[in-house]
């Protein structure tokens, strides 16, 4: 396994892990959906420059996620009506 591949997979794992911590239902679901779709969209990229720019962007987004999870957890609200009905999400 190439080192880039390991790095991308790690980023994917870390981002999903962080996104799952977002307290707000809507932001959490969007983040999970967006991360999965982005990595899927870009999985066939061959251009090494493009790959490294995508990795840089993902790192930046991971940092944003980490900071925003901390902030959001300080100002969280009660759960949405839909979360009481279906406590388990995909």
């Amino acid at each position, binding site marked *: 396994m190439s080192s880039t591949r390991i790095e991308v997979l790690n980023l994917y794992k870390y981002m999903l892990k962080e996104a799952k911590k*977002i307290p707000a*239902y*809507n*932001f959490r*679901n*969007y983040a999970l959906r*967006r991360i999965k*779709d982005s990595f899927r969209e870009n999985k066939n990229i061959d251009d090494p420059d493009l790959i490294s720019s995508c990795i840089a962007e993902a790192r930046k*987004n991971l940092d*944003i996620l980490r*900071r*925003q999870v901390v*902030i*959001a957890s300080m100002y969280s*609200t*009660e*759960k*949405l*009506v*839909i*979360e*009481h*009905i*279906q406590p388990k999400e995909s």
Partner: protein
Amino acid sequence: MYRYCKNICGVISRNQYVSNLFHCKYSTENKFNMHEKTFEGRPLYLDAQATTPMDPRVLDAMLPYMTAYYGNPHSRTHAYGWETEKAVEEARMKVARLIGADPKEIIFTSGATESNNIAVKGVARFYSSKKKHVITTQTEHKCVLDSCRILESEGFSVTYLPVNNKGIVSIEELERAITPETSLVSVMTVNNEIGVQQPIQEIGKLCKAKKVFFHTDAAQAIGKIPIDVQSMNIDLMSISGHKIYGPKGIGALYVRRRPRVRVEPIQSGGGQERGLRSGTLPAPLVVGLGEACWIAEKEMQYDHQWMVKLSSRLLDKIYGSLTHVIRNGDPNHSYPGCVNLSFAYVEGESLLMALKDVALSSGSACTSASLEPSYVLRAIGADEDLAHSSIRFGFGRFTTQEEVDYTAQRCIHHVKRLREMSPLWEMVQEGVDLKSIQWSQH
């Protein structure tokens, strides 16, 4: 339904009608209780046309300018000013890039209302010595219509163009309305109540040919549909921050430089923003708007696909279970994130009351306090009763499929329940043509 508490002549007697009402209200109480079920948790948010939640990425970009970098962007003598100015100019560039403009053509304002005021009043007043005529449409946002009213009191003449039953303005009619006296045409890009897209490209072309300035209120369109001020020949355009997942209290106005559009400023002061809008720029909000525009540019296609998916999901579910549902506005020329439906024989306000667990609106937030039916719906020729029974479903980037499913299910349930209570619905089921009834007032 109490709106219809009038004697129905020739079909059923007053006594029968009252007994029907009584029956509905007291016989099966649980079934017809408005507060039938308490629910746990916060309501879902489906009112994206009123405002959108701020994207966490936008907040992340803004925070440094609310804490560490507090300089006045107009301070020229020290680093505090320079660093904030740099951020403001970067934001200006991001806004400009989203609409294909030059950064120098972007003026930051407090929001789309202020932008519309500056554009409509500013252009009309600047050219008032030669031209004293302004054209707009009947379905514009209140702030454009009210600015036009002010202009009328100042001696301008204003043409309020009608729209067809799909909500779209006719190019031929616009062409006929333009006179040598006309200085400005103001037509919104996407309507805030019914989501209809006006033929901006054609209007821009016509205005250019007739040498009339063209302003468009794009608060509901920016970042959602592709807009290019060059190819669409737009001279002035209003932008709002909080409709595109940005902060509230910030907006922008695009003012064309070549050929130059002159505007008389409304606010006097230090001459910031090319003298068109004096006052210190709120740097954190400006940075937020810039970030929101940049994200919108990157995500436009992705978000659009999601909107199409959600709106067709909602419509499929509702059309699949309910009859007599009318979609307001042209479905082929509208933004999919805004679905305005009229549920015949159900009052919109009653349905909104019943759907307490979903944040919805019967029209624009500005006019939802009044019980008057929406002027936009009346302009597209909706009957009074249908205008009263409309609900606007607004989706955003953060809306989930589960939320749409829940809303559709609740909506179908309550429409069915309210219709069962309605004597009108009963009459329709019996095959009575409601239009043939002569209503008399007592």
